[in-house]
């Protein structure tokens, strides 16, 4: 029986070792990129809800303040989902017979809560407090985007730790006056950094070395 492999097959065997290592490295990279991708994290994907509620209409067109429904946003760590009673405050009289309102009426009659689908999920090992952010001049739209233009809400920003830290390191680039926090149309002024520095001092925002401490978010 003759030789199956020619002499230069040795080189191929050598190369395949490196090719294999490269493949493993690529696989790891591809996985890392995939799990950080907007596709995997469902960024910019509208989340269907059990009720066809439009922020675009209620906030954008009718101009209802964020706090009318999300009452606890400046009082608690959690920005509440409004109780069915809040919906019914208007919809016991307006559009009462619309089929879109039917799940709300049913919830109000039976006392069974509407099961809204969560759009923004923070891992359980992160402590996030809405109240401290809005009360220190971080606007709703800074993190949530133009919700006033969303008929169905989507997440517009992947919540990576680096993204959080970016603001915790440079709060002066993002804070706005407290009166403007709930203004969804707010545009940062040209002198943002100067204004931001002034607001950081005025609102007593911690210096970055404290604001980036582990315990601030992981407690």
């Amino acid at each position: 029986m003759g030789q199956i492999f020619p002499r230069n097959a040795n080189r191929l065997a050598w190369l395949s070792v490196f090719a294999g290592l490269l493949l493993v490295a690529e696989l790891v990279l591809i996985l890392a990129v995939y799990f950080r991708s907007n596709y995997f994290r469902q960024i910019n994907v509208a989340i269907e809800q059990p009720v066809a509620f439009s922020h675009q209409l209620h906030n954008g067109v009718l101009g209802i303040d964020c706090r009318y429904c999300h009452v606890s946003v400046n009082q608690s760590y959690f920005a509440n989902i409004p109780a069915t009673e809040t919906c019914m405050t208007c919809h016991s009289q307006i559009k009462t017979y619309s089929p879109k309102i039917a799940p709300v009426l049913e919830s109000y009659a039976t006392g069974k809560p509407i099961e809204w689908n969560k759009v923004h999920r923070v891992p359980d090992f992160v402590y996030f407090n809405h109240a401290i952010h809005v009360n220190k001049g971080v606007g709703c739209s800074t993190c949530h985007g133009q919700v006033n233009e969303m008929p169905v809400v989507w997440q517009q920003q992947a919540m990576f730790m680096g993204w959080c830290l970016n603001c915790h390191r440079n709060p002066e680039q993002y804070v706005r006056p407290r009166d403007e926090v709930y203004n969804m149309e707010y545009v940062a002024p040209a002198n943002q950094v100067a204004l931001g520095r002034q607001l950081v001092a005025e609102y007593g925002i911690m210096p970055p070395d404290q604001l980036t401490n582990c315990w601030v978010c992981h407690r």
Partner: protein
Amino acid sequence: MQALHSRWRLSPARLLRYGWVGFLALLLAACHQDMYNQPKVQTYDPSTFFADGRGSRPNVPGTVAVGAAQTDTYLYTGLINGVEGDVMPFEVTRAVLERGQQQYNIWCAVCHGEAGYGLSAVAQRGGIVPASFHQQRLRDAPIGHFFVIITNGVYRGDPEKDGYQSMYSYASRISAEDRWAIAAYIRALQLSQNATLEDVPPEQRANLGQ
């Protein structure tokens, strides 16, 4: 003497030959999400423990939170011997009025309009007729009246028969102090919309109309 040595001595060549087995073992370890999804109930998390599946429990009737005992009856009811009072339960300062303005613009302006005439986008689109604060009946009403209305809501007709609640109670959404601040701000709105030249200090009159 051969038997004293382990046959599986770790030589560099062996390490190179079998090292990849260790890497393979990593593949067996699935990604645990135990820290990501901790077995604790957070706001609105469902729970299998309770029959209705809700993790957040409704208050047991009659519960009073620490520090929330409503000992100051006038502050929480707006009534003196069953009649709407005409005094504020606390001093009205500029800060109270500004708080009232902010809260009014969140809660009330939605229907009653920012100036309080009962004109707003919601009222127009929804075909409802909210009260104007500038009618004589409400200008003459005691300040406690506004507090009582915000606290209890408004019934049109007899609730037993065909009546309905045209305005819901806001007691669960606005704190008693803020309801009073809104009442004070409504009074300020009423004064502003019916002001005459005499109400303006003489030195400020030149600024009018600018």
